[in-house]
């Protein structure tokens, strides 16, 4: 029986990079921090608030996201959107994700059980 701790660590490792991919995909439609958090959670990407908020800033610093303050609603919110640069990088990441999936599938089929 695998211990819960070990399982959690491996799942965390597996999921780590996918948050970036998921955020870049989701932010093709501009959104603010908390709304994005909920959208990601609803789509099966549970992410901690204290991970996501700093991550958004970092992706913005790297030029993968652009941002804009929206002051029309009840409180001013910072909206993020995937930039052109972010879009081209997302393409590369998605290709790699697909390649990983293909490789895993190939490996599973090639190994007798």
């Amino acid at each position, binding site marked *: 029986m695998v211990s819960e701790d070990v399982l959690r660590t491996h799942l965390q490792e597996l999921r780590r990079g996918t948050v970036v991919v998921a955020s870049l995909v989701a932010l093709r439609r501009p959104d*603010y*921090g*908390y*709304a994005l958090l*909920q959208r990601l959670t609803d789509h099966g990407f549970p992410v*901690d*608030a*204290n*991970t996501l*908020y*700093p*991550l958004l*800033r*970092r992706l913005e610093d790297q030029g993968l996201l652009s941002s804009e303050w929206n002051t029309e609603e009840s*409180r*001013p*919110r*910072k909206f993020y959107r995937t930039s052109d640069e972010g879009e081209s990088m997302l393409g590369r990441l998605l290709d790699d994700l697909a390649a990983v999936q293909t490789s895993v599938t190939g490996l599973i089929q090639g190994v007798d059980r």
Partner: protein
Amino acid sequence: MNTLTDRYLAATLRSVPTQRRDEIANELRASIDDMIEARTDGGQDATTAEREVLTELGNPDVLAARYADRRLQLIGPAYYLVWLRLLKLLLSFIPALVGTIVAIVEAAEGKGFGAIGPGIFTAIQVAVQIAFWLTVTFAIIERTQATVDLPGWTVDQLPAAPVRPGIPLADTIASVIMLVLTIGYLPFQHYQSWVHGTDGDNIPILDPGLWRFWLPALIVVLVASLIFEVVKYRIGRWTWALFGTKALLDLAFAVPLAWLALSDRLLNPALGERLSWLADADNRNILGLSIAVGTAAIVVLDLVDTALKTRRQTA
């Protein structure tokens, strides 16, 4: 107004770079308000919602570090191994060396056995200083953005696999026998020296007055050397730490011995009664000098030999 949220924001922003502080503050406050609102909409009361949201966001220092992309470690994996290797290398001989020098200087000023205390004290101080400054240096390197180009690892750095034990059992047994014989000889010569006084009593070779302090002290050093031999054999090869310990033990035995010989306090003055050659002060000085020089030569040769072995076995 000093709500929990205000306090949380203040705590987080304290360690975020100034130029981004206001923007992060506004965004984080909006996010916190959004999160609280989502909970109060679900029927929770505002105070509980605020507490839960801030608890979920966690320790403000961790959050601030994530915003600033700061590493939560003193010395990270990039430099840890280099730091560790340097620390071991420096600690293996510098404290022992400085401590020994201090002890010798103190002893030369006539402090005698009291010189060992300051020597050990200085060695500990030096060790603490080395560890502190080395760590500070690496912590600074870790925190500066500039990456230091460390030489990469190559297969040529692999140490030779030990084909035979670095410390042969025969050597250890020989050393142990020598030490046991020396320890045994010190009390033995007191009762049986084959030199007899006019009344037929046995005349000890070494000054019996030395039993008040110096001979027991030397026996303690010899017993420590005995333990050292066993520990060394168990470790199986020379390391710089072992070399440092051996140097200390050798000096702890040789320095008092040479000093006693030079100050004409080693040999029993009563020997002069029977051996007329020893009655002459000049002859006694020559003998004392020979003993001191001989002891020094043996220690130096032994330590050079050990240093060579250590270098070969740690290379």
